[in-house]
């Protein structure tokens, strides 16, 4: 491996590492602000997902991989999204009682 190739391989890793460290600091800072429910949770989740996306795309080499690999990754993401969405469909609608429901 030439020095140039070696350099080009490590540069994006370094940039991603810096980005992850910055986002970690942002996580800590954001935890000290109270945005109210549910925004505090959503902000923390957004930062965490951003970090996960960086790891998957760069450290796990999904960026630049074949469409099949990307499809496999998205299958997992969609699977988790289904789990969260349908579970939340329970929690988010429990507060709606029959009396509150719009009358037909």
């Amino acid at each position, binding site marked *: 491996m030439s020095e140039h190739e070696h350099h080009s391989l490590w540069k994006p890793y370094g940039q991603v590492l810096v980005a992850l460290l910055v986002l970690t600091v942002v996580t800590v800072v954001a935890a000290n602000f109270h945005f109210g429910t549910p925004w505090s949770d959503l902000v923390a989740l957004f930062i965490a997902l951003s970090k996960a996306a960086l790891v998957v795309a760069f450290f796990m080499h999904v960026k630049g991989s074949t469409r*099949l690999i990307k499809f496999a990754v998205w*299958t*997992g993401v969609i*699977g988790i999204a*289904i*789990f969260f969405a*349908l*579970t939340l*469909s*329970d*929690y*988010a*609608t*429990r507060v*709606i009682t*029959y009396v509150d429901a719009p009358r037909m």
Partner: protein
Amino acid sequence: MQATASAATPEAVRPPRHHYLNVDYGLRSWLLTTDHKRIGILYLLSITFFFAVGGIYATLIRLELLTPQGDLVSSDTYNRLFTMHGVMMIFFFLVPSIPAVLGNFLIPLMIGAKDVAFPKLNLASWYMYMIGAGLTMYSLLHGGVDTGWTFYTPFSSSYSNSFVAATALGIFVNGFSSIFTGLNFLVTIHRMRAPGMTWFRLPLFIWSHYATSLIMVLGTPVLAITLVLLFLERVFQIGFFDPALGGDPVLFQHFFWFYSHPAVYIMILPSLGVISEIVAAFARKPIFGYKFVALASMGIAILGFLVWGHHLFLSSQSAYAALVFSVLTMLIAVPSAIKVFNWMATLYRGSIEYSTPMFYALGFIGLFTIGGLTGLMLGTLGIDVHVHDTYFVVAHFHYIMVGGALMGYLGGLHYWWPKITGRLYSGFWSHLSALLVFLGFNLTFFPQFILGYLGMPRRYHVYPPEFQVLHVLSTAGASILAVGYLLPMVYFIWSLKYGDYAGRNPWGAVGLEWQATSPPALHNFEEIPVVDFEPYQYKGAPVAQRLPYRIAKYGA
């Protein structure tokens, strides 16, 4: 199939001089093998053992329920009996049954490959299975678990005095076995198909295993997470599910059923694949609507992830979420029905041969249909309120898991036994066993529909005397069922020494696995086959492919 004794065995049906069974004989050669066929045999022996363990628990349950008093075991012991029956049968028999035994053995053969994509990972999956089973056996030998196989919190995490943590750890480790197998199959099917083996030339057995593998890879990690959370709450009192610790018990049910409902499809989808192979082979017709049957497997796998909430209708889940889950549950009947109707259409005007595998396949279709339709009843909110946690549910899932998954497994085992061992088994005894299984199964579980509808709750061993007749019928059926299960163990073992040689293709079936020798060679094929034909081309299949004794008996 009748294993007739023949003095002079034609050379064509003699097993090859070298095959996977005689390539080496030492114990080490089996325990360190990376041959997919040998790993399939390792799984066959292991799951048969754990099926027997689960069967012993079932026997004790049925004996206890003979009388209304609850006089054989205490309530606490009874709780442990049905829990360990469920744990053993689901995690250590049904989930690995067809994929790990028949799938491991057949997938490379059916797609024209020499082995699976990751042979060492394949062996590792068997070791993970054995370690998980060992941990669970440890808890079993020390008294077992009393939570039910569903491990509902907060009882399992905070109150049960049984071996919950050890069992959860055993199932956690066993989950890796499932993930390894699923991952291996996905990569094998994607990357190792023989030249010309396009997606729509794949046998339906392969399609069903592809769909199953997706569930294994996507669902099993969630079970692992669930068990870790349960373990943390039980051992370290970190609150996830116990309200006393700030948790939510219904959240556990969401986590658990997100895996465990798709796990039903891990059990049943491979059976659907087996039945497609058998129906086509013994109706001697191409599968009606091949593409629809193939894509129905994918439909079942995907929709299977959207319906878990129907287990929570009465667990304080939101009524609106319950409505959504009820509708989604109805949807999954569509791909299931596509398969049943297409099998029927395949049988229509087919040249049907009532071989033992076909007995199992026809039995499967009937039982799976009953199990599926009662599933729709349970997915209907109003009916579920009435029969929730009754024997109606017990009967329903046994029609799917035993009437469906187990019948498919036995059908597949009978269909491919000549390929696996190179030997034929007794026609008479195998027919008898299939009949006993079918009759015994219905006598065991049909009365349970009535029991449940009348209000008999599940997981109770003391019951009102008016239910005794139905319970006695059920126990009598279980006795017949047990004989039906024991018979194959006898004639399969008998066939290893005394059965006639099978030859490459005793059924005159199409498919690459039947082009290999019986038993297959170490690397399956003399040379990698080239596929230039469509699947299930039975019309006009040359009779000469049939077993010589059949030609002698029925004429060519």
